């Protein structure tokens, strides 16, 4: 049973330095203008005062990922709980860009582009016993963002452990942030990116209960197979019928030829 890994972000520890965004961009050698991580802030007037938090926009590594569901070529797939990309398979059809409830994947240079937890072509997950239970990916390193974060807001590890730690962190935060919660425990089969939010999801522009719309599943799991199946069936049925019908038609033409001796030769 493959181990399920995850990344967690503690928005109370995050200092909005954007080192994760820069490390990701340089480490993954992304071209100018492209990025996998966007860090911004939200400030809201509340009860005569102000409330603010940093906001991260990046792949949530959903277990029941909409992008994986719609990808026609399998370029997007799950590996150990993370959503990875095989670029050679990508056709840039763009279905994933429409399907994602968080608007994460985008097309760049005719390929889908998004965070893959640094699991590139050579990346593999290697458990390493150390004090932080650090895990190695991508030639023996942690994901760039996790490695760089100066306030240890970003962590990588086995999902079960990160989830438990996130929950206890939230319990401690509740005294300061009554609405603090872990985002991602159950939605979409459980997210591979767990976020400790300091307030309700809508304060962050996040959907409270993200889902893969049933239309997508119906399209992929019902309509497409049915369409292929019915076409194949029609072709097969017609093929069989042809044998029978051809014989009948030949007989009919012979009958007609006997009845009308003049004119009407066989056709080509």
């Amino acid at each position, binding site marked *: 049973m493959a181990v399920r890994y995850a990344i967690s972000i503690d928005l109370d520890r995050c200092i*909005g*330095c*954007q080192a994760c*965004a*820069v490390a990701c961009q*340089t480490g993954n050698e992304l071209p100018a203008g492209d990025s996998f991580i966007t860090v911004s802030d939200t*400030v809201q*007037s509340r009860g005569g005062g*102000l409330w603010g938090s940093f906001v991260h926009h990046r792949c949530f590594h959903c277990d029941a990922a909409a992008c994986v569901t719609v990808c026609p070529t399998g370029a997007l797939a799950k590996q150990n709980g993370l959503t990875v990309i095989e670029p050679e398979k990508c056709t840039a059809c763009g279905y994933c860009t429409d399907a994602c409830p968080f608007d994460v994947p985008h097309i760049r240079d005719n390929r889908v582009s998004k965070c893959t937890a640094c699991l590139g072509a050579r990346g593999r997950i290697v458990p390493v016993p150390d004090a932080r239970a650090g895990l190695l990916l991508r030639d023996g390193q942690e994901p760039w963002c996790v490695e760089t974060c100066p306030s240890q807001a970003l962590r990588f590890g086995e999902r079960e452990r990160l989830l438990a730690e996130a929950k206890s962190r939230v319990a401690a935060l509740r005294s300061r942030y009554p609405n603090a919660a872990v985002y991602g425990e159950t939605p979409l089969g459980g997210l591979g990116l767990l976020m400790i939010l300091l307030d309700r999801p809508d304060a962050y522009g996040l959907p409270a209960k993200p889902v893969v719309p049933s239309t997508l599943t119906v399209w992929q799991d019902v309509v497409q197979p049915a369409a292929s199946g019915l076409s194949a069936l029609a072709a097969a049925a017609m093929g069989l019928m042809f044998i029978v019908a051809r014989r009948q038609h030949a007989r009919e033409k012979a009958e007609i030829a006997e009845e009308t001796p003049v004119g009407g030769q066989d056709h080509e």
Partner: protein
Amino acid sequence: MPPGPTGKTRADGVRQTFLRGATAMQELIEPMITGTPYPIKGLVLYGTNLFHTVPNVPRTKEALQNLDFVLAIDVLPQDHVAWSDVVFPEATYLERYDELWACGHKTPYIALREPAIEPLYQTKPGWWMARELGLRLGLETFFPWQTAEEYLNQRLSSIGMDLDQLRKQNGVVIQKGKPYLANFEATGGSPFNTPSRKVELYSEALSTAGHSPLPDYQPPAEGPAGYFRLLYGRSPVHTFARTQNTPALYELQSENEVWVNDTAAARMGLRSGDRVWLENQDGAKSGPIAVKVTPRIRPDCVYMVHGFGHDAPGMTRAHGKGASDATLQTRYVLDRISGGAGLRVNFVKLVREA
């Protein structure tokens, strides 16, 4: 006032206008222009972003023009470089050796700083410049080594090491440290260099030097009507005024914004994204800069991130982006103890871009 080690008065006024501290750069500007207490003829600016560091940029430019010789040594073609007589372009830290980094404190260590690549352009490392200048100034005896490696090996030999060994240890020698105060507890000494050997709230030393022994609150002066106090600060993305041209960071933040309180902005008919010029109480101008309307700033102040408004054409990305807070800081208040400059005493008005 206790005299310095040589008993002389230094041009920046250390121990005269201020009690302690390192050189107060901004206090050298007037002497460079007036020649008092003594004339200053030349200036070497090494790793100093002069026009973004020292307040009152117009006065600084006057000072530079008054000098006989200005040498700028920098890794970037910053704003002051064009005002110098001679420019030494320096190789970046990735292209050069630097002095060993020796750090004391709780866990002492010595670290190697070595080049990752040969210099990409016609730049030279600082050690090479120092040596070449030294040789031409008749100081050969102080430069008995030819290369940086020779120099570093010589230094490392004092702890029985050399460069190869240091490299094998990933470039760091970590030495056994001890908690900072352990010694003091054992020996009965004190880390506090005060007459009482304690942290003093009432300071005899300050009193003897002619300063108030207790902090003495002076209310801040009001600005002119229609002006806002100019506050400045830092963004986590940029470091001082030297990273605005770095591609990855430029992408994240290419310019600064002037934060205007939302009520004040509504009164002035300003919206986020509007471009304005900032003009201070002495007529110094900088801009154009985008407005950010936010409740996060007081109605009587405006705020901007430091380090933008470069006008050097060599800063190809940063050139002309945002406004320079340093240009608008024509006044400052000298801290009498450290010699530091309090810069948040300038006031600006917002002039809509035509």
